[in-house]
């Protein structure tokens, strides 16, 4: 769990909201509470890591609707749905809409902590992956057209000689470009290079 993560609580019942805040803070978690879905939407910065505890039944925008809006806006914060007792139908719908888990009121504090920690871990690893992907994409963006062509050849498993023939340039030139690619992509081996490109989705299987 990273220090910057925040648990967002969206619930229309002020007492419930506050009590949940009190409980989560006692677990050394950072909490922000909102009384409605729209309040949350206008305040939330997508860069903010964490997870969302969401009451399924709320006036105006319900928990399910908020899930839909978040999906449409590409907000991928993990969601834990809070349902009333025995509200299985709602829980099923929320899970189908992509909620990570659900909790029935009144909930066990240990169960709450476990699920929140799971969600935070999921969010953190997703963000790590995304950052990594962006970093690699940025490096790849610095390659010249020729270097990209050489990269494609290398990823395609072709030898320097073959690449030289493909592109109509000398082997020496290929070697120079290849060294540049490795340098710009911060890769020590072709294996590392390929792994990076797979992570960043640059590696497309040739038909």
């Amino acid at each position, binding site marked *: 769990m990273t220090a910057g993560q925040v648990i967002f609580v969206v619930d229309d019942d002020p007492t419930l909201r*506050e*009590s949940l805040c009190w409980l989560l803070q006692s677990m050394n978690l950072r909490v922000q509470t909102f009384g409605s879905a729209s309040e949350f939407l206008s305040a939330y910065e997508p860069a903010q890591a964490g997870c969302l505890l969401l009451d399924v039944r709320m006036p105006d925008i319900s928990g399910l609707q908020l899930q839909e809006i978040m999906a449409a806006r590409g907000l991928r914060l993990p969601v834990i749905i809070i349902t*009333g*007792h025995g509200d299985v139908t709602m829980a099923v719908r929320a899970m*189908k809409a992509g909620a990570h*888990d659900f909790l029935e009121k*009144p909930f066990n504090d240990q*169960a709450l902590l476990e*699920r929140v920690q799971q969600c935070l871990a999921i969010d953190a690893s997703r963000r790590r992956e995304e950052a990594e992907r962006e970093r690699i994409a940025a490096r790849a963006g610095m390659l010249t057209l020729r270097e990209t062509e050489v990269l494609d050849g290398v990823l395609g498993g072709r030898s320097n000689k073959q690449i030289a023939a493909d592109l109509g340039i000398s082997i020496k030139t290929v070697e120079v470009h290849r060294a540049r690619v490795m340098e710009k992509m911060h890769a020590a081996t072709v294996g590392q290079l390929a792994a990076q490109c797979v992570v960043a989705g640059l590696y497309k299987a040739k038909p």
Partner: protein
Amino acid sequence: MWKVVVALLLVACAGDRAWAETPSHPIGVLTREGEDDTGERWSATADYLAERVSGHVFVMVPLRQEALSRAVARGEVEFALTSPGHYVELAVLQGMHCLATLQHAWRDMLHSTAGAAILARADRNDIAWMSDLKGKSFMAVSRESFGGFQLAWWELRSHDIDPFRDFSRLVFSGFPAERIVEAVRDGLVDAAAVRTDVLERMVDEGTVNLTAFRVLHPRASAQHPVVRSTDLYPEWAFAAAQGVPEDLVRRVALALQAMPAAHIAAQSGRYAGWTAPLDYQPVHEVLRDLHLPPYDDVVDLTLFEIAHRHWLWLVGASALLVLLIGTTAYTLRRNYWLKASKSALERARTAEAELSHVGRLAAMGEMSTTLAHELNQPLTAIVNYAKGSIRRLEAGNLDKEDLARVLERIAAEGQRSAEIIRGLRDFLRKRKPVHEPADANRLVREAVDLARLKAHHKNVTVRLELGESLPPVVVDVVQIEQVIVNLVHNAIEAIDDARSPRREITIATQRNERKGVDVTVSDTGPGVPEGGVDRLFEPFVSTKHDGMGMGLSISRSIVEAHGDRLRIVAHAAGGAAFRFTLPETEPRS
């Protein structure tokens, strides 16, 4: 058996993983001769469940049909994933119940049913009708397969064909079933039965061309376009054994039904998600008709079979019967009208009783749901405040002012709850006018019927000790039944929570000298703790998670409205015993 043990050991060996202490649940999955990849096929489903039902691990244990039945009977597996025919057997013999029905996809449509097709080569003009199959050779996958053989058997029977007698040869090929279709195509057998999904799969893979075959007695529908010879029946069932905790069962059911059709687990299991459990009754009927397990020893013989087996007896009995009928016909005719009117009266009375029963059930359900829902908010807040305070206290960072503020909140939420209960009591008091004369014993029986399911589920025996020739009592039947149900539920939970070795509840009725009938509900649970008696009657203390519990507080209010008090009395067996009196006359309000 050894497979279960090995699978569990494997889980235990993964000791360094975070879920080392999490409970692991074995799921028995049906596998058949020739199916080698069962474990592999379903392991992603187990992983999916572990991911969705946090805090639990699931293991798929591939077992043959008999071994799976044995494993369920011995409690070695908690869940079973099996064919409709086998599921029905497990449901009847082991009390398993279905959580979800398997779905498969064909051409972008989701199906949770399958049928059987009876096939012959299209160029075999001598096999055009079912009746042409007599004297021909026939292939099916296995005698135990519901979709692969039993369904076809049932259909053949309705065309007067006994597969074990009327075919020149009956071959069971074993799995995979694809080889059956190939055998028909290659002319190795004249005809065969396969499950519809086998054909679907082969058509999609391009291994066979449907036009090369003729499906006998064909039917199809827009929802299920593959031609088949039988009706459609539910697909495989994911079932839970008796005694698996309700919460776990519910979460597994939920997780399965929430699985998207294209999920990786579904893909590697070659299916397309799960749907809410379908009605398996039609499967029961097929198996019953065919005298197959679990109906293999049921005496449900057709007249023809009886005649066939016991014709000598039948002739003798018929002769006797004719004689008897002759002599009694005269008397019967005289009594006929009298009887007819009497039975009509009886039927009307039964129907009326059933109706009022249903009405009461609905009223009770409504009240308790409202209460549970309303109380949930303040209760949740109180629990959160309290738990948050405890955690801070343990960590040594509880600020005094903060604590005072939170305690204020807890008190306020307590008040809020009390008001909700008061409101409900008022509601109960307001709908008072229905004090009517009633039979105390009948009332107890009806209430116990309502609680029977839960008692059965928790393996608790309910005994009745009903007094004889009791006077009628004047009560609000709905409310008093509610009190009894409530007390019985409390007793069941007390016994269950304490894991009492004796699991018995006794409900006694007895006339007392104060013009009333005493009703006593006693149990073999741990009893009421000393000093805990007053606390028992407070709101919240007895609100149960199953939503039915109205709390002893409500029960007490009802009894008080009937002019009495709910009392805790000494109980010889050591458990708790609650007693209240039903008045013989209407209480003064």
